[in-house]
C-alpha cells in the first residue's frame, strides 16, 4: 500500500515551504501517492489545547473525520494519515489515542462533530509521520537505491525534535530518547552522520513567541552542541524546529553575543539533493542561515577516498558493554 492521506499542516505553505516543495520533489521517485485531506483545518498547534479541552479536540478531530470520510468514499481507500509536521502529527495521534483511552471524551467530541454533520470513531485511522512512512514502509534499501549524488563527507547532525518520538502512543519509534530513524536515513543518503545526544531535545517551540529568553537558551544548547561536534549542517523533520533554529539563530546570537552559523535543512531537502534534484527544486535558499558553504562540500561528484589512517593503537581499557542489535532494541522498547 503506497497510497496515503496527507495532512500538510499550515506551515507547509508558509514557513515550511521548503519542506513542502522538497516532499513533492521526492514522492514520485519513491512511488508514494499522497492524497491531501480535503478542506483540512489547523490542528491547533500547542496553543488551542491550552484554552478549552473539547473545542481543541473537536478542532483536531474534524480533520480525522474528514480523512475517514474521504477514505470510506473510495474502495479500499488509504487508512493512514501522514503528517510531515511533528506538531500536527502529535496532535492528530493524541486525539485519536485519548478518544479511545477516555471514551467519555470521544463521546463529547463526536457530539460536537455531529453539529457539523461529521463523526469519527477513534482508532479507524493510522496517524503517522512522514519519516516513519519513509523508513518503515518505503525502506532504507529503496531509498538508498535512488541515491545518485551521495552526501559523502557532509557532516550533519540528525535533529529529531521532541514531538515526534514522544509520547509515542503507538510505539512507532526505536527509542524515546535516542531514536535512530533519522540517523539511519541520512546514512543511507551517504551523509557523515554525527551522533547527536540532543537529537530529541526541544527547540523552544512557541516560547520563541511568548518567552524568547527561554527559547534562545534552548536554541543555543542545540546549535552549540552541534557546532562542538563539528557539524556543518543540521537536518530536521519538523517545521517548528526548522523555523526556530533558522529564523531565530541570528537573534539568539545577539542575545548571547555568540556567532554561530548553523544552517538547518529538512531531511527531505537532503533526500532531494541525494536523488539528484537541483537545489532550487528542493527549496534550498529559503533558509535564513545559508547552507551554501555546507552544501559546497557535496557539490562535487568525486567520491571521497578514505585516508588509510594511522594503525589503531591497542585498546588497554576495560571492555564496553555489548551494543544492542536493532532487534534487541526493538524488543526492549516494547
Amino acid at each position, binding site marked *: 500500500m503506497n497510497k496515503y492521506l496527507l495532512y500538510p499542516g499550515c506551515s507547509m505553505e508558509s514557513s515550511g515551504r521548503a519542506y513542502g516543495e522538497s516532499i513533492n520533489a521526492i514522492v514520485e521517485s519513491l512511488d508514494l501517492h499522497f492524497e491531501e485531506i480535503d478542506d483540512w483545518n489547523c490542528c491547533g498547534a500547542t*496553543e488551542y489545547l491550552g484554552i478549552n479541552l473539547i473545542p481543541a479536540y473537536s478542532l483536531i478531530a474534524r480533520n480525522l473525520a474528514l480523512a475517514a470520510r474521504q477514505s470510506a468514499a473510495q474502495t479500499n481507500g488509504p487508512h493512514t494519515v501522514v503528517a510531515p509536521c511533528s506538531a500536527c502529527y502529535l496532535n492528530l495521534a493524541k486525539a485519536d489515542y485519548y478518544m479511545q483511552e477516555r471514551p467519555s471524551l470521544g463521546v*463529547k467530541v463526536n457530539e460536537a462533530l455531529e453539529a457539523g454533520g461529521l463523526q469519527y470513531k477513534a482508532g479507524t485511522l493510522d496517524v503517522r509521520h512522514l519519516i516513519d512512512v519513509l523508513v518503515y514502509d518505503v525502506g532504507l534499501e529503496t531509498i538508498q537505491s535512488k541515491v545518485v549524488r551521495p552526501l559523502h563527507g557532509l557532516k550533519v547532525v540528525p535533529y529529531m525534535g521532541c514531538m515526534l518520538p514522544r509520547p509515542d502512543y503507538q510505539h512507532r519509534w526505536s527509542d524515546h530518547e535516542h531514536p535512530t530513524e533519522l540517523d539511519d536515513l541520512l546514512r543511507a543518503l551517504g551523509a557523515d552522520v554525527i551522533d547527536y545526544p540532543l537529537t530529541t531535545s526541544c527547540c523552544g517551540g512557541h516560547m520563541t513567541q511568548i518567552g524568547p*529568553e527561554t527559547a534562545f537558551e534552548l536554541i543555543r544548547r542545540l546549535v552549540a552542541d552541534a557546532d562542538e561536534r563539528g557539524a556543518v549542517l543540521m537536518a530536521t523533520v519538523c517545521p517548528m524546529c526548522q523555523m526556530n533554529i533558522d529564523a531565530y539563530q541570528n537573534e539568539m546570537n545577539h542575545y548571547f553575543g555568540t556567532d554561530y552559523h548553523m544552517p538547518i535543512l529538512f531531511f527531505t531537502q537532503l533526500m532531494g539533493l541525494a536523488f539528484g534534484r537541483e537545489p532550487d527544486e528542493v527549496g534550498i535558499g529559503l533558509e535564513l542561515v545559508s547552507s551554501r558553504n555546507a552544501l559546497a562540500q557535496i557539490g562535487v561528484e568525486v567520491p571521497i577516498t578514505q585516508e588509510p589512517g594511522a594503525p589503531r593503537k591497542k585498546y588497554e581499557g576495560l571492555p564496553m558493554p555489548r551494543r544492542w542489535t536493532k532487534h534487541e532494541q526493538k524488543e526492549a522498547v516494547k
Partner: protein
Amino acid sequence: MPRMTDERVRAGLAREEDLSLLHEVSMKTAGVSHLEMCIQCGTCGGSCPAAQDMDHTPRMLFAMLRAGMRDEVLRSNTPWICVSCYHCVVRCPQEVHIADVMYTLKGMAIHAKLYVNSTAPHFSQTFVGMVETFGRSYELGLASRHYLRHFPLRLPGMIPMGFGMITKGRMAIMPKKIKHMDQLKKILDRAKQLELTS
C-alpha cells in the same frame, strides 16, 4: 482509591463537585491523567529543558494541587513555560500525563483570570482567534500582532527576520481560509457548550 478515580473518570461516573482540586484537574485533562499516582520523584522537574525559568517545578505544582493551593497553582508561570517536549511524560515512572495536565492548568488559569504576568495567554488567544476566523494559522499576522503588542522595542530587531521570511515567501501576506468555515464554526460552538456542561 486512585485506581477507582481513574476508572470512574473513564466511565464518566465521577462528578466534579465531589472531587478535590487534584481530581478536578485530573477530570478536566484529556485521557486519564494518573495525577493521583505521582510519587514526587522529580523526574519531570529534572527532565524539563525550561525548568530554570519556572517558578515551580512541575512536581512541586502537583504537590500544591494535592495541598489544594488553587490560586498559587493557577498563578504559576510553569504551565506557560512548558514547551510540551514530552521528556517528562515518557520518563515519568507513574505514567502521569504531565504535558496534558499543563494544558489543563493553562485553561483553568485563563478561565479564572488568575495568570497575568505573561504574554502567553494573549498569544494563545490571538492564535485561537485566528484559527476560529480562518481555520488556518497565519504566522505573519500572529507574529506581528503579538510583537507589536508585547515587544514593540524588539520588533526592529525582528524586522530583518520578518522581512527575510516574507521575501523568501515563508510568511503569507494574506491568510488562507478553509472552504467550510461555517461547518468548523458549528462544531466549535457546540464543543464550547459541551465544555461548559462537562
